[in-house]
């Protein structure tokens, strides 16, 4: 029993320690942000990694998310809700929740794993030490460009994913669910609020930060060899996914129960 509580205690201490170190890393990234213009080439390279590299994944995921949402919405609405509300149901679900969260989980996992594995390999092969010896701060040279690339590009990916998902829902509705094009498009415009898209985008900005921070933090703290890189990559993805889901809840309260409610 004692060992059980000791183990729990160790997890709590490790969690708090990581949260503290993560906050310090975030502070260091903000401290180095004024150098972003000097690092613009690296920021653009990382933006390319997020945006262009993720496109096939984003398109496939979003098309099927839209399609599944349409199929299941029709099933739930049968005999209860007029089909003219199908468009609004799909769009609101995608804009507010599915777009930002699924992109943060799918694209975010890809990106987070990439950052953790890349930086973790640099750590275990002493490339980070070499950078330090050269009086080049790895936070400025590596962390800051990756962080801002993620924060700026995850919302762009999300907007694109929203559009593709709605298009996927429209296509499936019209082609296989006997919903007319006019009814679906009319439904899209019903109850439309800018705050739906804005709320989703604010979420994806925060998620972009969480994803990058988790990947960079775990990469920088990698220990050992190949196994260490594997472990830190796995930890980074798990931490990123869990943090996104927890943050999603709190953002939902802040955005949709407090800010946009007024």
């Amino acid at each position: 029993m004692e060992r059980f509580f000791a183990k729990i205690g160790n997890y709590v201490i490790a969690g708090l320690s990581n949260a503290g170190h993560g906050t310090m890393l975030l502070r260091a990234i903000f401290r180095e942000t004024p150098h972003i213009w000097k690092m613009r080439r690296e920021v653009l390279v990382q933006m390319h990694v997020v945006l262009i590299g993720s496109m096939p994944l984003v398109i496939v995921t979003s098309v099927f998310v839209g399609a599944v949402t349409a199929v299941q919405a029709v099933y739930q609405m049968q005999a209860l809700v007029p089909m003219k509300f199908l468009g609004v149901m799909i769009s609101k679900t995608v804009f507010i929740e599915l777009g930002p969260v699924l992109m943060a989980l799918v694209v975010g996992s890809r990106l987070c794993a990439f950052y953790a594995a890349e930086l973790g390999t640099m750590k275990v092969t002493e490339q980070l030490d070499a950078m330090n010896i050269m009086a080049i701060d790895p936070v400025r040279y590596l962390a800051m460009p990756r962080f801002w690339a993620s924060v700026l590009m995850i919302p762009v990916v999300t907007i694109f994913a929203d559009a593709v998902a709605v298009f996927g829902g429209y296509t499936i509705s019209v082609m296989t669910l006997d919903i007319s094009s006019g009814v679906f498009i009319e439904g899209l415009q019903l109850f439309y609020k800018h705050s739906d898209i804005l709320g989703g985008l604010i979420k994806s900005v925060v998620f972009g930060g969480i994803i990058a921070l988790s990947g960079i933090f775990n990469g920088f703290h990698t220990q050992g060899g190949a196994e260490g890189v594997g472990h830190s990559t796995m930890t980074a993805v798990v931490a990123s996914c869990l943090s996104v889901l927890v943050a999603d809840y709190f953002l939902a309260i802040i955005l949709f129960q407090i800010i946009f409610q007024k």
Partner: protein
Amino acid sequence: MKVEYNIPPPPDQKVADPTAFSGIVIEGVSKSFGPKQVLTETDLLINKGETLVVIGRSGEGKSVLLKHIVRLLEPDAGRIWVEGEEISEMEMSELMEMRKKFGFLFQGAALFDSMNVCKNVGLMLEEHSGWSMDKIKDRACECLALVGLTDSDDKLPSELSGGMKKRAALARAIVMEPEYILYDEPTTGLDPITGDAINDLIIKLQKELGVTSIIVTHDMASAFKVADRMAMLSRGKIVFTGTVDEVRNTDHPMVRQFIEGNSQGPLGAF
């Protein structure tokens, strides 16, 4: 039957006033990783302009000692002065300035995978010199020529052999004309001819640029060739220091066992 060895006391490696010493002073440095004590109150002096070779068995903490000099590792106890400045007291900005005086050749070269050789070598100049890209490229090529890598500037590290990687890393270490160069196993894993070429380069840099070199190795042929002075690290302490001739002629049982490569002796076999 257990053999008793007559091991002399460690050499005195202390100075009265470290702040007045022009080289590097390592005083009472201890470091452990988990339960493993690697360095135990280690003292060492490195004079300005000399080539000091630190020898010792694998896992004795030679690389750990080297990394403490540039504060890549923080000691659990003890202090280090570089040119009279205590590095553990330095702010990060001061430390970064101090590090510009150093070049470091890592055991595994530690070239940046994503950059070609020229960019690897020129990166420090890009960050700190304010020079034009053409001038930086010229200087990088000059350093690469110095280490015999004239046609490899646009290659990625993955396209280089082990010896070429080491030479490229050496070109990177000298690009800012450092006052100190730290070499972590510079000849390990190289064929004898490439290893000897690296030794010649170390001597050339010391003669032409007057750099202070600290070399960690267990390659005795290399050590005898490049050293002005040698220090032996064993069980976390410096157990012997002396010139090359003093090392060759010493009857210190640990040093004798090490340079003769004998499995019997006070160092043990495993």
